């Protein structure tokens, strides 16, 4: 009943890989026009959740609605309705900024008559119009991210997914990137769903914070609400209190590595 004003609605979502449970029964809603920070230590299930929301992985159980569509059943409708900036760069380095935009417009069926104006508008928005004919490989990390944000907006999505959009960038660039994102949220009413490890970014930006650990939702509230509940002085302390001090494996665990290996040899037979 509440999906009307919720851009994303997730109920009892579960994802299992063999007998490993990556996401264990999580439920949350993302109201339209809000900024939603999805936090957790490495390997907590953040990326798996984003992959399920964005049609790349199908859930084992539970329901998802993104803009009123089920990603598992109506993947094309869902895909047209969101923009995504992946954790790892996803530009074609051998193409120019303009060409990267142009190819995206083609893939997403942006009307061809509108394409040039939209590309110009967005490249101007992220201040890359004067570099439109430069190859993406000549761009700095921050410029690449800006280009990816512009590209993600080309098909006018109503939700923008950002998976660690500022990882590896210097504070100036991070600030710069967030100023664009904030502007999109405030001026265009874009719903923003993001993950990050930088707590000050969350404090500055997020309307709602969800913290996930070991596949379970451990807290979901406003920044102030979470700090108050944890009884700490800052969000960072609250985060550590809620998710523990143990250092998580950077990237893949041994089990992930094994899964990867077996995937190489068995091909992609498993859907």
């Amino acid at each position, binding site marked *: 009943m509440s999906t009307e004003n919720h851009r994303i609605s997730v109920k009892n979502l579960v994802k299992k890989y063999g007998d490993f449970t990556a996401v264990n029964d999580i439920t949350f809603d993302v109201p339209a026009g809000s900024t939603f920070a999805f936090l957790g230590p490495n390997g907590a299930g953040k990326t798996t959740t984003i*992959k399920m929301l*964005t*049609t*790349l*992985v199908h859930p084992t159980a539970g329901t998802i609605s993104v803009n009123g569509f089920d990603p598992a059943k109506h*993947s*094309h*409708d869902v*895909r*047209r309705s969101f923009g*995504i900036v*992946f954790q*790892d*760069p*996803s*530009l*074609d*380095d*051998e*193409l120019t900024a303009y*060409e990267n935009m142009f*190819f*995206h417009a*083609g*893939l*997403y*069926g942006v009307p061809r008559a509108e394409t040039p104006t939209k590309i110009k508008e967005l490249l101007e928005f992220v201040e890359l119009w004067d570099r439109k004919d430069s190859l993406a490989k000549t761009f700095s990390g921050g410029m690449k991210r800006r280009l990816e944000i512009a590209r993600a907006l080309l098909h006018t999505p109503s939700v923008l997914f950002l998976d660690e959009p500022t990882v590896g960038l210097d504070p100036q660039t991070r600030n710069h990137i967030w100023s664009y994102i904030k502007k999109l949220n405030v001026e265009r009413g874009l719903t923003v769903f993001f993950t990050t490890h930088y707590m000050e970014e969350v404090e500055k930006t997020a309307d709602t914070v969800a913290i996930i650990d070991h596949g379970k939702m451990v807290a979901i509230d406003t920044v102030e609400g979470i700090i108050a509940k944890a009884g700490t002085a800052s969000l960072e302390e609250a985060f550590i209190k809620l998710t523990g001090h143990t250092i998580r494996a950077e990237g893949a665990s041994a089990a992930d590595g094994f899964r*990867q290996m077996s*995937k*190489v040899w068995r*091909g*992609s*037979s498993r*859907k």
Partner: protein
Amino acid sequence: MKSNTFYIIYILWLRQIKRYFRSKSRIIGSLGQPILFLVALGFGLGPVYAKAGGGNYIQFLAPGIISMGILFTAIFSGIEIIWDRQFGFLKETLVAPVPRLSIMLGRTLGGATVACFQGLAVLIISVIAGFRPELASLPMAIAFMIGIALVFTALGTAIASVLEDMQGFQLIINFVVMPIFFLSGALFPIDSLPATIKVLVNLNPLSYGVDGLRAVLLGTSHFGLGMDTAVLATFIVVFVSIGAWLFSKIKA
């Protein structure tokens, strides 16, 4: 919707073309090997071949080396998917609201086009080296070149769809590409080979490509032009289908 599918195929085709012509080092680099084979084998073994009563070796060799140029470029174009996976661009295409089949077809057609350019470049070089083909048969030769290119771009796509990273690349070069090249009759006549090797040659799609090229460019053939055409066409259908199927199974 229909026209959109064709537009997407066109867009992905265009991307392959742009990347190819932008990478001058790749164009020149991948011409090096065919030139080396043409010069070293053509002039090195030429006199022996002539003495054995085979005639002009460059004439015999050129269609084989043209096929080789196409084979390498085509497989490599297909395998580029692994690079796209590593550099992230693959995700961008896989999360787009378009059927995987149109992505695969666009990439394959683009890769095959690039491979044909490479084949034409080798053809021109072999003419400089002394190759004298029947110019009237050029359109037919190009048709065969497109056929070879399609088969092996699809094969590259199939391989890249099941490999996760470049670690298996050397394996593929040594156990797939090289055997295909050497056991195709590109370098030597296959009429008098031992029976076991002949079986391998007969199972090799490139054998029919090379033989077809010889049939149209020189008028000499082992299998016969009809057989070459039929077998190569069958391989195109089979390999493109397998490639499309495996590509549709890629996980982002």
